[in-house]
């Protein structure tokens, strides 16, 4: 119990939260774009895992940044099926989303299976070192928690700023929100609803892939089937928790990561509490946040509805 009074316990938990949040930030920001535009991507898990595998397979022989980029592109490639089937051919988004998740998991598992010799060398990358920010990282215990992170984390924070700007300040951000809120009115204003939804979905695929790549290159380094372990679905939780706000998604990802890390950490504090109880903490927190935020939550009006242009 005494650990709970130590600053290092909490700084370690915050740092862990940041690390766990990093892939979620990429994935949930991308998905926020898609959902604001009215597209419900249940294939996010698939985008993430395909991003994870591709980034590894490219980064191993070349370099991490290139692998990271390719991870994003691979997620985008899978998302293009969502575009084709749901946005252009009006297939149900839920059905296609689940299909893409299975496809992503199957494809990565298969590629891994076929390209790995038992007992031979697996593809692998070494993890990035933490980028220390002079002075800030040296602040006692706080420095490490908040400022000692890899470039994937820093980049995700940069992405939050860029995405927040794109969502609120650019015509594309406006159009995306418009086609998710009121596709008919947006179309009447000359917005090409299907094109914007396509772009938003591809962005979500790209960022979902980057999320998987950040997970792979930033904290895992080697592939295992099912490696994303439902993080794509957790990103969906984060988005609804955050009421479809970009900043909220980033904060929500961190909150989720923090409580997940806290659950891991408390195992040595409350030794008698079953691990399952501790693992439930982040989900319980999500439920509380969801209940409280339901009062002002504002779901995109057109979410999940395929838009069929007239004429």
């Amino acid at each position, binding site marked *: 119990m005494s650990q709970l009074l130590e600053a290092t316990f909490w700084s370690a938990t915050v740092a862990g939260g940041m690390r766990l949040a990093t892939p979620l930030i990429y994935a949930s920001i991308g998905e926020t774009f898609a959902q604001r535009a009215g597209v419900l991507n249940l294939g996010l898990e698939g985008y993430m895992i395909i991003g994870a595998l591709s980034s590894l397979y490219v980064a191993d022989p070349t370099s991490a940044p290139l692998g990271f980029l390719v991870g994003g592109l691979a997620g985008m490639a899978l998302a293009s*099926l969502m575009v084709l*089937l749901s946005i252009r*051919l*009006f*297939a*149900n*988004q*839920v*059905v*296609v989303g*689940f*299909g*893409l998740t*299975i*496809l992503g*998991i*199957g*494809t*990565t*598992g*298969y590629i*891994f*299976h*076929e390209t790995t010799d038992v007992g031979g060398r697996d593809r692998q990358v070494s993890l990035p070192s933490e980028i220390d920010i002079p002075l800030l990282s040296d602040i006692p215990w706080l420095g490490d928690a908040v400022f000692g992170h890899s470039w994937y984390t820093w980049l995700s924070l940069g992405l939050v700023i860029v995405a927040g700007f794109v969502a609120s300040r650019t015509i594309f951000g406006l159009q995306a929100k418009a086609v998710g809120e009121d596709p*008919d009115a947006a179309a009447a204003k000359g917005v090409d609803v299907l094109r914007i939804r396509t772009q938003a979905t591809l962005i979500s695929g790209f960022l979902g892939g980057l999320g998987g790549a950040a997970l792979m290159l930033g904290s895992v380094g080697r592939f295992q*089937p099912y490696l994303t372990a439902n993080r794509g*679905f957790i990103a*969906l*939780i984060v988005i*609804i*928790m955050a009421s479809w706000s970009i900043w909220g998604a980033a904060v929500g990802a961190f909150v989720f990561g923090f409580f997940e890390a806290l659950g891991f950490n408390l195992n040595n504090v409350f030794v008698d509490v*079953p691990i*399952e*109880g501790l*693992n*439930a903490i982040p*989900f*319980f927190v*999500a*439920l509380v946040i*969801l*209940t409280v935020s*339901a*009062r*002002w*939550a*504002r*779901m995109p*009006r*057109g*979410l*999940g*509805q*395929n838009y*069929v242009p*007239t*004429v």
Partner: protein
Amino acid sequence: MADVVADGDLDDVRPTTPADEERRLTTSLSTSVLAVLIALVIGGLILLMSGENPLTAYSAMVDGAFGSSFALGETLSRAAPLAIVGYGTAVALRAGLITIGAQGQVVAGAIGALLTAQFFENAPSAVAIPAAALGGALFGMAWVLIPALLRARFNVNEILSTLLFTEFAALLIEYLLNNPLKPPTAITPQSEPYPKNGILGLVVDGTRFHFGVFAAFAIGIAFVWWIRSDRGFSYDLYGENPSLAQSLGISSNRVIINSLLISGATAGLVGWMQAAGLLQRVYVQIASDIGFFGLVVAFLGGATAGGVLVAALLFGALQSGGLAMQSSEGIPASLSDIIQALLLLGFSIRYAPQIIRLTRGVMANFTLIGKRRA
């Protein structure tokens, strides 16, 4: 289609009638077949590239789904729980609610059935079996009660709350099977064998076609009754137009809570079926992915009686065939997943307007959340 009216272009000739519109959208039979054929061809190319003969692979798949009495039994015993969950989910969908919590409710139902069966361990089967079925259904309902109340009272998005409760169920069953429900000797999470007096017998020996499968027919008939019943009509009306339904005296809270409870009860019943019929023991993976695929089945089947049945059979066949493809052709599980996913995506392009209507209804309901802002 609904939005033609919403456009309210009353001052003019309608560009096309809704019927025309629907005809335009309805993917023709040939398009649907084409989509599935493309999926088969792509899958075949992948098989070919990985050194398998696509024709023998597909034929193994069909054989594994329909080729023998055992295979048929497999397809049926996999389709039955999917159909039951599909019907329960369809009731909620028709009332404008998306619950993706069936997965957790199946788990809760299995626990409930096991506990009830253990309580009635010495009772005659005629008591123990229905009691356990009821226990499963009640646990399934209990597992959706909080999301239902949260939705009715605070407008909490049920997609998410039911998903969270699925996580809770997964953790709960892991805890129970690691601790109080675990036989002393076991080292991995599993329960004692399901009590003998509660086990559902086999319809055909040498298969896994057990009597629980008939529950799917019973639920199917109940579903047909439901959608033709007065109350079912009220719930459908609420799903189509919540504000109209409320103005006609249909209580929003009652529809939300009851339809979610119905979906929970059916999923709980599936938990019982899997524990008492198919597996005869409770495992952590007792729900397989039935809950999630049940939702897909409900959507793919357009939340109609026949559609859900066919979609469930399709899925049952895909799963048993996919497994047979692995065991008889040596095709890796991941490749079999790819083929199944491609076929699912191929089948997803079928009847656009029906599903668009369904989703519109669901989302019309959700916009209430947006409107309830201060």
